């Protein structure tokens, strides 16, 4: 119960960050789902489904502010399907502990990149 409540809280926080920075939904969903007891691959798979309502709500409300360029979004999204298949096949072939280590490395890289961009924009 406590874990479920924490998951709801973390989900909410992940959504705020996603709406704010345009990133961050999945980066927080995966560790949250790991804490709920899922394995790395199930956590990643489930995170992708959780991203759907987040991205839809985020895009819908950003659209009201006139910020979405739909043509570019469509090109990006359709092109991404090819990458999804490649990334998915690779994820299925890696042992879960390797996938988890790679995910942790990804978090550090994203953190560094965010900090650098924030620094540069000041």
């Amino acid at each position: 119960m406590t874990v479920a409540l924490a998951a709801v809280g973390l989900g909410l926080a992940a959504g705020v960050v996603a709406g704010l920075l345009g990133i961050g939904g999945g980066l927080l969903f995966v560790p949250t789902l790991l804490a709920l007891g899922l394995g790395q691959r199930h956590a990643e798979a489930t995170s992708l489904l959780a991203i759907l309502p987040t991205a839809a709500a985020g895009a819908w409300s950003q659209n009201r502010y006139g910020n979405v360029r739909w043509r570019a979004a469509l090109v990006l999204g359709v092109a991404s399907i090819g990458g999804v298949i490649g990334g998915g096949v690779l994820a299925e072939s890696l042992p879960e502990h390797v996938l988890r280590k790679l995910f942790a490395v990804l978090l550090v890289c994203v953190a560094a990149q965010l900090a650098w961009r924030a620094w540069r924009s000041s």
Partner: protein
Amino acid sequence: MRLVLIGVAAGFFSALFGVGGGIVIVPLLVLAAGFDERPATATSLAAIGITALAGTLFYAYHGQVEVAKAALVGLPAAAGAVGGAALQQRLHRREISLLFSVLLVAVAVRLLLL
């Protein structure tokens, strides 16, 4: 053409790590396609809708998607995303970016220690 390459790279990262791909799309739209930050984040969210759908179908085929747990974190997140987008219109993002990067490092350390 640039958009196609960015999309493919984002899809690869998305499915490999279970993330939306915004971490790839947003900086590349800014640095390589000349987008401003706000249109970049907004356009990224719309693109991610398609990417995440493709990824979900891929993993559902392998029987690894847990719908109830996705709803547990995804539905509150949808509400949060609307709030976050509203905040973005008036908030300076620098402090949030720095705070979020500290949080990510903390989560990474924990995952590496597991």
